């Protein structure tokens, strides 16, 4: 693997460059039936999708925002623009992407990465995908990697069979919201036995101020196939609230292996209320790699339903909360079948008054005898203003299981910093080393480019004045 990574040398300032809003259409702010019908019409939805959206809207109106977790009262849906159509058609060549949008993705290193290390790329700008491509070799093997709009048209049956079946709109208020106004996202289908060895990456960029992004990612891996999907997210900073309420549904077939990697790197005005869920069949494997950086508030708990015997889940997460941020992240696993196993390993860091909560739910149902689950979550607070919590919940309905849980919350040790400084290492680097050391057990499990990006983001967070 090449050592140079696609986002290696980026600075936070690059994420923050905003383009002039050149969208050709924006829905009116707020959420009404009229808005939903309008979005649906502009997207040329089939009738069933319009119905789905309207039903979701009803659900949305009937349920309350969660009464737990971080305070999200500053989110005022009446002010959020749910649909922003960029002035661009989806194309298969970067040359045809409008210059300012192209520049954005260039700065994020996406086209360069595509040439180097990706088998397919999707790029979404505000509410619509502006670029999608996949290597011909994969297409010939029957692999589908396209934007959701195209998928609905060209693979309607598969989409209809799976769309929001894992995350039904009634799941929670923001799932319902997603069902009503979703737009964009990627669709991946890997036929039985096909191994997609090089990663596919979709990048979601939210440029418009005061807008919401509601992309839908649907991935289906048939029996014995494998793939690695990378999701990247970012947005420039505004002083109005933006909302991200994406939805990810992953169907991992018998013996299939899916790695789903994300580094979410939102600006500090973002409410990130994202829902991700995987259904894993017999002997299948879902591997989550989840980095949560940025945003004002995040609520993100990727869920794995271990549905078939011997299904497995590996979850690796790093969360970094700094000043003004409340990041509530974690994972959930539902063991439904016997001999299923899960391994959850997380590190959370809080700094300058930031709050980081690790929240997990592990459920082992009656049928899941011989289930194995091990949870290891560690939190590090870099100063006395910062907060950290771990809230693991276990619900075990069967006796014959092997469950382990280890949680540690600690503050950075002044003596450890002194020790490093006494060896000539300056204070900032000493702190950075200790933080890198703290995430190292996780970083070493990551592919090199991810470890490097994670380290970069950690350094950016540490260097930032707040």
């Amino acid at each position, binding site marked *: 693997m090449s050592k140079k990574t696609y986002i290696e040398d980026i600075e936070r300032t690059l994420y923050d460059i905003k383009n002039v809003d050149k969208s050709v259409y924006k829905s009116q702010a707020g959420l009404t039936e009229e808005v939903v019908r309008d979005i649906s019409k502009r997207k040329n939805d089939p009738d069933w999708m319009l119905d789905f959206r309207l039903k979701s809207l009803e659900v949305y109106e009937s349920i309350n925002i969660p009464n737990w977790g971080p305070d999200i009262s500053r989110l005022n849906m009446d002010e959020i623009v749910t649909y922003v159509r960029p002035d661009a058609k989806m194309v298969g060549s970067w040359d045809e992407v409008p210059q300012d949008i192209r520049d954005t993705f260039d700065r994020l290193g996406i086209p360069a990465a595509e040439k180097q290390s990706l088998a397919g790329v999707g790029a979404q700008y505000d509410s619509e995908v502006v670029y999608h491509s996949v290597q011909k070799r994969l297409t010939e093997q029957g692999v589908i990697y396209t934007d959701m709009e195209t998928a609905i048209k060209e693979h309607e049956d598969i989409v209809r069979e799976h769309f929001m079946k894992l995350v039904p709109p009634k799941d929670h208020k923001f799932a319902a919201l997603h069902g009503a106004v979703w737009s964009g996202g990627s669709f991946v289908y890997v036929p039985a036995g096909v191994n997609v060895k090089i990663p596919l990456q979709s990048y979601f960029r939210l440029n418009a101020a005061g807008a919401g992004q509601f992309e839908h990612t649907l991935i289906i891996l048939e029996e014995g196939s494998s793939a690695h999907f990378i999701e990247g997210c970012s947005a420039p900073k505004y002083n109005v609230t933006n909302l991200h309420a994406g939805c990810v549904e992953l169907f991992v077939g018998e013996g299939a292996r899916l790695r789903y990697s994300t580094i979410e790197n939102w600006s500090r005005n973002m409410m990130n209320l994202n829902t991700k869920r995987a259904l894993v069949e017999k002997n299948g494997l879902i591997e989550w790699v989840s980095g949560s950086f940025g945003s004002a508030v995040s609520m993100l708990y990727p869920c794995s339903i271990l549905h078939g015997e011997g299904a497995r889940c590996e979850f690796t997460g790093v969360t970094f909360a700094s000043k003004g941020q409340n990041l509530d992240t974690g994972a959930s696993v539902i063991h439904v079948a016997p001999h299923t196993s899960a391994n959850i390993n997380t590190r959370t860091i809080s700094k300058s008054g930031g709050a980081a909560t690790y929240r997990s739910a592990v459920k082992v149902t009656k049928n899941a005898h011989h289930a194995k689950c091990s949870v290891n979550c560690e939190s590090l607070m870099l100063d006395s203003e910062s907060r950290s919590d771990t809230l693991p919940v276990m619900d075990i309905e069967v006796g014959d299981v092997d469950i382990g849980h280890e949680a540690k919350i600690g503050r950075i040790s002044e003596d450890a910093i002194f020790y490093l400084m006494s060896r000539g290492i300056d204070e900032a680097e000493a702190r950075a*080393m200790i933080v890198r*050391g703290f995430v190292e057990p996780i970083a070493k499990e990551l592919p090199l480019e991810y470890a490097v990006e994670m380290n970069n983001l950690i350094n950016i967070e540490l260097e930032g004045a707040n």
Partner: protein
Amino acid sequence: MLEIKSLHAGVDGKEILHGINLTVNRGEVHVILGPNGSGKSTLMNLIMGHPKYEIQSGTIKFEGQELNLLAPFERARLGIFLSFQSPEEIPGITVENMLRAACQAVTGEKIKILPFRKKLQAVMQELKINPDSANRYMNVGFSGGEKKRNEILQLLMLNPKLAMLDETDSGLDVDAVQIVSNGVAKFHNKDNACLIITHNTQILKSLTVDKAHVLLNGQIVAEGGTELVDEVSQNGYSKFTY
């Protein structure tokens, strides 16, 4: 090289050291003796710049430069080194990576991985340290004796001007004491100096002591040469008063 004048210092407003005077010249080996709690570690922490300890009055100078306002890393870069009585564990940072970062920081030069590794392995071999421990996290899970040996490894890699050793010979088996003592002897030459705290004096075997100081309740109550070291190891501290 090191010049301490009427140093009054302590922690949390409590005075622990009551007027210390101490001069260490280039090429010398000094020993600090004293019962538990007399302030020996406090003195070394102050010289290294531990943020918890504050100077109430008096001065610490190194090669003519007042240390008071310098951060610990700046003191390290001037050539001051402390082998800790209880070395910290640093999870996630390997011995090799930390030491390379430290050597780069102290010399101000970029150091290539491979030559560095070679040198590190050679020094580890001299100290009879298991070569695999270069890839272990700094002091994490090390036995007491392994931690001490690891401090001497750092001493030899960083090659400072002033080596302060705080009970580096405590908790070592007979062979290990010999290895550590040889290591310090190897380090010492006419251009550098050692300041050594010891309770059992074994670390001094391979060294020639120039001066010994007895610290009692934060004051130096006796000074002399090797004979003072012998006197204390035979009769303890009962004859000293302050």
